[in-house]
């Protein structure tokens, strides 16, 4: 079973996000970068499948700036137990929208042996929910998104997909792509020997030309025009009262008469 995992480096969710001077990007100096949490589930699941079925796990990422940050995340994947890593490194990546990134990733995957592709349901920076399903479409492959449980048997993958109000169980023939949902597994921590070993594993680098992708085909159709902060919420009123009952009644009165939400 040859498994490809698509990973991305993102600001840790505890990061304060500030808008940069250009009004189009965020300030990156104070941000702590980590592997996208949904991609951690993806790497963990891939390693568990390989432990059972044999085969290989390859982590792939795309980056514009010689991939310094992306390489850190690929090394985390290797330290967790992935066998190989590939970085699509090209200045053109900077201008890509989700569909462009998906095209690059699909071009990279196409030339590698793959029975299963696992991606995070979304990256917690752009919150796009696009790349997984779009990679699958580019490879004309079935995909199941938001998977909390999977079982592989007889060349098929059976997936529990979370939907509003419950789960739906779907089956797809391999090769297939799945995206991860919280609850799929508990990602392992990287161990010191794992980290040391990961440092010795090579990261294969590919440019657009290597992948046979024309930069003109990556022109974004969705373009960020401006970033702004959401309206700031400031603390309101602390409801005082002699007893819990008195406070509760005053709150409900305010919700009904001032806020008009009850």
């Amino acid at each position, binding site marked *: 079973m040859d498994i490809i995992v698509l990973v991305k480096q993102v*600001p840790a*969710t*505890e*990061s304060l*996000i500030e*808008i940069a001077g250009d009004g189009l990007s*965020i300030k990156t100096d104070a941000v702590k970068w980590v592997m996208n949490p949904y991609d951690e589930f993806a790497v963990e699941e891939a390693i568990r499948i390989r432990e059972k079925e044999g085969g290989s796990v390859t982590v792939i990422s795309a980056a514009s700036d010689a991939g310094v940050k992306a390489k850190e995340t690929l090394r985390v994947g290797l330290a967790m137990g992935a066998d190989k890593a590939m970085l699509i490194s090209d200045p053109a990546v900077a201008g890509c929208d989700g*569909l462009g990134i998906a095209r690059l990733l699909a071009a990279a995957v196409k030339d590698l042996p793959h029975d299963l592709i696992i991606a995070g349901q979304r990256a917690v920076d752009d*919150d796009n*929910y*696009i790349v997984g*399903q*779009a990679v699958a479409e580019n490879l004309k492959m*079935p995909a*199941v*998104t*938001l998977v909390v449980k999977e079982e592989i048997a007889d060349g098929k993958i*059976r997936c529990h997909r*979370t*939907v*509003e*109000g*419950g*789960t*739906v*169980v*779907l089956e*797809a*023939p391999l090769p297939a792509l799945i995206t991860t*949902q919280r*609850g799929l597994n508990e990602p392992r921590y990287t161990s010191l020997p794992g980290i040391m070993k990961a440092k010795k594993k090579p990261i294969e680098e590919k440019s657009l030309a290597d992948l046979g992708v024309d930069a003109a085909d990556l022109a974004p*159709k*969705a*373009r*960020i*025009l*401006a*970033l*702004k902060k*959401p309206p700031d*919420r*400031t*603390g*309101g*009123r*602390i*409801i005082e009262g002699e007893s*819990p*009952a008195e*406070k*509760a*009644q005053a*709150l*409900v*009165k305010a*919700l*009904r008469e001032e*806020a008009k*939400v*009850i």
Partner: protein
Amino acid sequence: MSNGVLIIAEQQDGVFRKVTFEALSEGKRIAGEMGGGLKALVLGSNIGEMAPELAKYGADAILAADAPALANYVTDLYANVAARVIEAHQPAVVLMGATAQGRDLAARLAARLNAAIAMDCIALKVDSGDLVATRPMYGGKVLAEVGLSGAPRIAVIRPNAMDITASAGAGAVEPVDATAEESRLSVVEKHLETGKTELTEADVVVSGGRGMGGADYSIVEELADALGGAVGASRSAVDEGWRPHADQVGQTGKVVSPSLYVACGISGAIQHFAGMSSSRVIVAVNKDPDAPIFTKADYGIVGDLFEVVPEITKAVKTVKG
């Protein structure tokens, strides 16, 4: 040239999701500005009776893809039918709801049609003929204005973010080719709780956090019931195993925008704010007067939630009679 707006309706067992009406109402407004009519596509099996309801929110034409194979949402079947309809009708804009189904279908369609896409939009505007979507990034810590070019442009709208406006449309139901080819995906089982208010669509959400101290959420559930709302949880409550993952509100859980959000025993980590800060009114109950949640809440009660929350429930029942 603009060829109007197409919305893709979402229904489950004969009931439309609320976000479908939000998409129609927003679609009507966009069609009014860009020119062209508003069409709705509904896919399913035995949908003849429900389809006309879409005219109440302004649909000029209702395209019904009715076939037994479409009874359940399956990505490739729905994408095949929707792509064919989009190619035939050439809408300038395609709208659908940001649900498990809507996001999945929209991403597949965007890749197939090479169409500009914006996910989880909370506002849309037309600017010199272009569609500009406002959408949260970084878990709502930033709002991005995204310009979409080409045709069609796909905007996937977040539930509860846009108003529902009734407006009668001509709304004739037109059957469309529902042949979906063969699917490589098959639905084996469905485990769905019916009749439960979906967290992302609820008008009121009552959440419990670490302060709950255990898996007994009865006081939170009773308040949610009294308010006709849904129950949520903070990440720490989910990590403790007190509540299912599906209930988690926050940056790596669900994002909710109800009219009223009540946080019980939640200190207010930045990741939790990301999931609920777009709520209209926030109430916090916490025994720690210095809990960060009070810096964002419209109304706060400092006190023991086990004493305060049942009293709120009682007071709500009294005023609601």
